[in-house]
């Protein structure tokens, strides 16, 4: 069965967009925020971050939002565009619905806190 909805965001792109919800951030701050939001599961190296940023800029989901000079170097900030907000919200909704499909059907089991068997809600909850 083939899904007719639009393709999903890749995970790094999803978390980069999520990192920008709070307002414009520069590259290094985006990396820190993505690590934090994903519970250290997505740790972007600089080369990977800029590959994601280039794609998001190309699709008009983010835009450059000013520069400042720090230590003699240009520091560029990025922010979400209206289209970026819309796509991120759609994706978060899709993930939430997909998570509900499983969570609603799972038998109610009690997992000890910190158990490795415990299903991670954080992993499926949109940031």
């Amino acid at each position, binding site marked *: 069965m083939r899904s007719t909805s639009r393709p999903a965001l890749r995970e790094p792109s999803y978390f980069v967009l999520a990192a920008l919800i709070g307002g414009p951030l520069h590259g290094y701050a985006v990396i820190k925020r993505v690590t934090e939001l994903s519970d250290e599961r997505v740790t972007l190296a600089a080369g*990977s971050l*800029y590959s994601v940023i280039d794609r998001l800029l190309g699709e008009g989901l983010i835009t450059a939002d000013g520069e400042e000079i720090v230590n003699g170097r240009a520091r560029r900030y990025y922010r979400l565009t209206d289209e970026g907000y819309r796509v991120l919200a759609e994706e978060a909704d899709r993930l939430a619905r997909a998570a509900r499909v499983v969570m609603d059907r799972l038998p109610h089991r009690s997992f000890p806190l910190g158990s490795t068997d415990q299903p991670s809600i954080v992993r499926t909850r949109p940031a």
Partner: protein
Amino acid sequence: MSSDVLEKRYRMLLRAYPADYRRERADELIDTLIGDEPTTRRWPSIRQAASLIRGGLRVHGGSTAARPTAVLLWQGLHLGAMAVLALGVLIGLNDIVGTFQFGVFLDPLGVLRDQGIHLVMVSAALVALVVGHDRTAAVLVVTAAVVPTVISPYLFLNGLTQWWAPVVAAPLIIAGLRRPADVPPAPRGNAILVTAVIVALHLIPVEGYRPAPVSTQIISIAMVIVGVAVFLWVATADQRLLIAVAPTLLLGTLHQLGNAGTGELLRRPDALPSLVLAVLMVAVAVVSTRLRQRTRA
């Protein structure tokens, strides 16, 4: 102080990116790499270094272009033509050196006539392609496929690999003349580097797979594994390499077609298996690039 050294080393790594991209983004990337925290590190971490190299390869492969598939195909054709000609020159040189080593000093003019003219003409076509004179390269490569054979059919009658190089390169170069205006040519330095990587891939001694001492076979297998792993690491980031390597893999099959039966064609790793691999690589490059375009970010 250590931050200055680290920055210098990061800037070295940033040379993996095209010059235009570096002009636009180098400072920003350095700012992100160094971050806000004080550091005593003097060397980039392996993870950051690998990420920067792959990032640079992706940009070279057209990831930031308006039409990534067009860049992949047109630049892939150009790089494929360069690689196949470079391989032809290398094999031709090797054969001429070998001929002299085995004592054909009695007839140097004969060697020149049989192999030298072809080598000079293929080299000229390669140089024209490298310096960006594509129309001249098209004329030279067609001439290299015809004129030396008219003068001496030695390479053609023996079905030698280098004879096929201009034959395979000619349609690629001629097709490349129709490159759309919005697709830039591959930068010269990058094109030379890509060609060197592909030629190096062909220098791996796959012959060791054939009956040989165990130690030779082990070394050969190790070299193949390392070589293919490095190539795939590079080519999955810059997928133009998957297109560019295909015509060079075709040479072995064409050579075997003229010289051996179908059994040999199947058995030799540089014959039919290479051709199948070449077709697969082109398919993977085109399909994955198109899928990436369709997939959101």
